[in-house]
């Protein structure tokens, strides 16, 4: 039998922009930013060329895991309004194209980081891709309401990766940066899940509000925020951020706690879920502002040898 006998030819119309969309650019930007902060906070230095290559490799690795996530979750994405326009459910790319792209990018990013920067960072990147694409996407997401709690670790690795690029190791300080993002993820994501519950229900994704109920979710969000607020100032207490950053981080943490308290307090009172939407928006600002402060402080320390307003 001839190879192409009775086969409908399928010629791709995919554009480079569709492949770029597979890499979840908004997530990638956050990954680049937090990895850069980890790199700047780490003791020691890295050649600027290798630093840029390291950040790019981390970004491509994160994008690759996003592509693998979109390949596996295409069935869910086609149901949810938030994700229905992604390249695969929209028909711009096939699942196989996404899978091949994700696999190639994963291998290239890990090899590049390992060979040109160091293999500790390369190994952490490989683990992060595996954690997100296999552990979270293929298993946790569809099987437990704790999916984004445990899976949130994947999003928390980038500052540790940046740190490892410079030092060739991980340390307690890098774990603190990891912990901030890890503890931040549940209240951030559940604020979204509370007003997108129906979407997740239709897609049969066991998010916390759908499984444990709204009341339990709000209680847990408050608990995580109670941990997050003091965690915000740990970098200052441990001496790798200055006093001014500590004060501003405390303010950011207290506002986060207050907005989560409003979500907890207003349960069932507001059909428009204003408090939840406000918390979701603020949570993005919180993480950006906290890491921006740490970055400014790290740059100040590298230039002048002292933190803003001195150490704690």
């Amino acid at each position, binding site marked *: 039998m001839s190879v192409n006998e009775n*086969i409908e030819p399928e010629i*791709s119309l995919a554009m480079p922009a569709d492949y770029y969309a597979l890499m979840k650019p908004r997530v990638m930007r956050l990954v680049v930013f937090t990895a850069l902060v980890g790199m700047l906070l780490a003791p020691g230095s890295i050649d600027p*060329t*290798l630093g840029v290559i390291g950040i790019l490799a981390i970004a491509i690795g994160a994008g690759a895991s996003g592509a693998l996530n979109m390949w596996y979750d295409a069935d869910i994405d086609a149901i949810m309004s938030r994700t229905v326009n992604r390249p695969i459910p929209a028909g711009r790319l096939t699942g196989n194209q996404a899978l091949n792209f994700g696999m190639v990018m994963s291998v290239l990013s890990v090899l590049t980081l390992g060979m040109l920067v160091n293999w500790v960072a390369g190994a952490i990147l490989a683990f992060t891709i595996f954690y997100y694409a296999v552990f979270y996407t293929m298993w946790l997401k569809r099987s437990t309401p704790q999916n984004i709690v445990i899976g949130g670790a994947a999003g928390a690795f980038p500052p540790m990766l940046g740190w490892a690029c410079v030092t060739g190791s991980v340390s307690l300080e890098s774990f603190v940066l990891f912990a901030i993002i890890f503890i931040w993820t549940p209240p951030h994501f559940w604020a979204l899940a509370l007003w997108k519950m129906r979407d997740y229900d239709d897609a049969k994704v066991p998010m916390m509000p759908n499984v444990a109920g709204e009341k339990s979710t709000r209680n847990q969000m408050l608990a995580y925020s109670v941990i997050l607020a003091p965690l915000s100032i740990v970098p200052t207490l441990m001496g790798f951020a200055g006093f001014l950053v500590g004060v501003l981080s405390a303010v950011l943490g207290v506002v986060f706690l207050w907005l989560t308290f409003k979500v907890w307090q207003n349960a069932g009172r507001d059909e428009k879920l204003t408090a939840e939407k406000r918390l979701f928006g603020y949570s993005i600002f919180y993480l950006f502002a906290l890491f921006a402060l740490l970055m400014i402080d790290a740059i100040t320390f590298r230039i002048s040898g002292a933190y803003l307003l001195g150490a704690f």
Partner: protein
Amino acid sequence: MEFGEGKMQPGELIELTDEQKRARKFRNIAIGLALAFMVGAFYYGSVARFSSKLGERAATVAAEKAAADKAAKDSN
């Protein structure tokens, strides 16, 4: 696409539409740029790695030479 009754026969060639040709052209350009970027990254990355190691090596050699000179001077 019209190939007989919608099925391709052995030996038939596919005629790409303008839209398909345009998409392929842009994909080829993107792959080309990505490959060129990778070559550049590995070239400059390797140079950066070598130069930092060479710097360390030069410093070690200079320190060893200084120590040896000092020892020779002290013994005299």
